[in-house]
């Protein structure tokens, strides 16, 4: 890695995500996050390289595009595919997950705002691929969406449905006790951008997605045929 980027305050590891190490530091004097996708020892090295560079490229491209479209995502500062490195704007704030868990006043409004952002993002033909409340940082009342490594360009109902399914399931498992109001607020925000009709369509899709894969009985019967 090029040394000059590291000059300034001491780098600090802020998170070890499933995919990457996140280091807070500065970039050309601005507060920045260095997201490094490190090799995984359990993956075949060639597959590992493929996944790390694909995801680094995807994340960089999509946050850049969404930023240019005016959505609240970190600004892209620097990319190195071979190192699996992205340098982006540091968003000073709290994870939406923690704000909901602490029940700060107005958390429902934040979720409604998030619903709007996600609807706008889907409207631009982008699905996130890992929509959870841990992938949202709230700065001054605005929910910034992060972690776009699993995102892709798609406007298909199927992909949009999966995106929303992931969000709802994450809410169910993480915020089970306020699940209802959170999901309602999310759809309110979403509908205010995309319209009630679209929301209805998406909800139907989500229902269908959730019935797949889960069930044992039919599978077991099919298997031996």
């Amino acid at each position, binding site marked *: 890695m090029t040394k000059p980027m590291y000059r300034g305050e001491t780098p600090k590891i802020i998170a070890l995500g*499933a995919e990457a190490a996140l280091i807070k530091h500065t970039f050309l004097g601005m507060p920045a996050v260095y997201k490094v996708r490190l090799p*995984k020892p359990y*993956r*075949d090295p060639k597959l590992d390289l493929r996944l790390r560079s694909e995801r680094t490229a995807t994340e960089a491209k999509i946050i850049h595009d969404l930023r240019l479209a005016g959505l609240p995502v970190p600004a892209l500062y620097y990319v190195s595919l071979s190192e699996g490195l992205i340098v982006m704007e540091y968003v000073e704030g709290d994870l939406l997950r923690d704000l909901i868990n602490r029940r700060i006043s107005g958390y429902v409004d934040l979720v409604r705002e998030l619903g709007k952002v996600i609807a706008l993002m889907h409207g631009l033909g982008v699905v996130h691929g890992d929509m959870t409340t841990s992938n949202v940082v709230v700065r001054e009342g605005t929910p910034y969406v992060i972690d776009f490594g699993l995102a892709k360009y798609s406007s298909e109902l199927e992909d949009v449905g*999966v995106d929303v399914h992931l969000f709802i399931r994450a809410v169910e*498992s993480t915020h*089970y006790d306020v699940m209802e109001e959170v999901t309602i607020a999310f759809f309110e925000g979403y509908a205010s951008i995309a319209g009630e009709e679209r929301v209805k369509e998406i909800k139907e899709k989500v229902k269908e997605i959730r019935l797949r894969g*889960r069930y044992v*009985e039919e599978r077991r019967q099919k298997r*031996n045929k």
Partner: protein
Amino acid sequence: MIILGIESTAHTFGVGIVKDEPEYILADVRAKYVPEKGGIHPREASLYFMREAPRVIAEALQTAGLRMNDVDGIAVALGPGMGPCLRVGATIARALSVYFNKPLIPVNHAVAHIEIGKLITGAKDPLIVYLSGGNTIIAAFVAGRYRIFGETLDIPLGNFMDTFVREVGLAPPYVVKGMHQLDKCAEESKEKKILNLPYVVKGQDVSFSGLLTAALRLVRSGKAKLEDVCYTVREIAYSAIIEVSERGLAHTGKKEVLLVGGVAASSVLRSKFEAMAALRRVDVKVVPPKYAGDNGVMIAWTGLLALKHGVTIEPERAYVRQRWKLDQADVPWGDP
């Protein structure tokens, strides 16, 4: 406390008897329905269960050296599973409960797979990774239930592996000497080539149907060596599972992983889990094959935990629940 448990959700009619202190397991008798050809016919399986039930129950009591009156409760798996099969177990359990005047305890089959795994491996508060022919689930205990953090969006891992090897003519048998045909075939790939096949992970969910279609198409096109396709498919499928498990660990902060279900017997998969776990400094525990498959012991053990927390059901209300999902079952004993 001594509990008798009855399993009859799919292919196995099993009766287990357990006690609340070591050696815990007093009896474990199973009758497995093996269809002559094709898949399981629920009605045929249920007829088989009805024929076998009296023998299995008697044998279990005999092994434990007990009589029905020594038992403190009757546990039964009310779901999820196949209706006709479930009804055999439920009917017998209701009758025993009424006739011998013992409390009847409703048990969720998926919860039971987890509880027996915890008992045998000593796992306390694990991230649960349940990989079988019928299930691909990442779950963890949070506030009274096993919550689902990830699952498959289409076919389960074991089903995917079995279908692939069957379609390319490597199976049946699917598993030879403890090794799945997919692992065997993959090991033959000398170059360890990674072909261009789709890797699909969505958050904490996996999806294998696109991989299956693409891999089969590639084999049929003759453009790649079978063993290279096997290697790629195996690496992609296992890596995807490890990735979503790792995300589950990062998300829940759990310090152990418990592998449940038939596919956990793959030593290749296990060593990948161990490599991931070492990196995150967590422990990996694996349910041994004997208790990974359906059995009555797991129902009895879960019933015992439930009864200690006052969970019982009136026999006339003990309906079977074919689609009783893991995250819909209350687990009042679950706090680590």
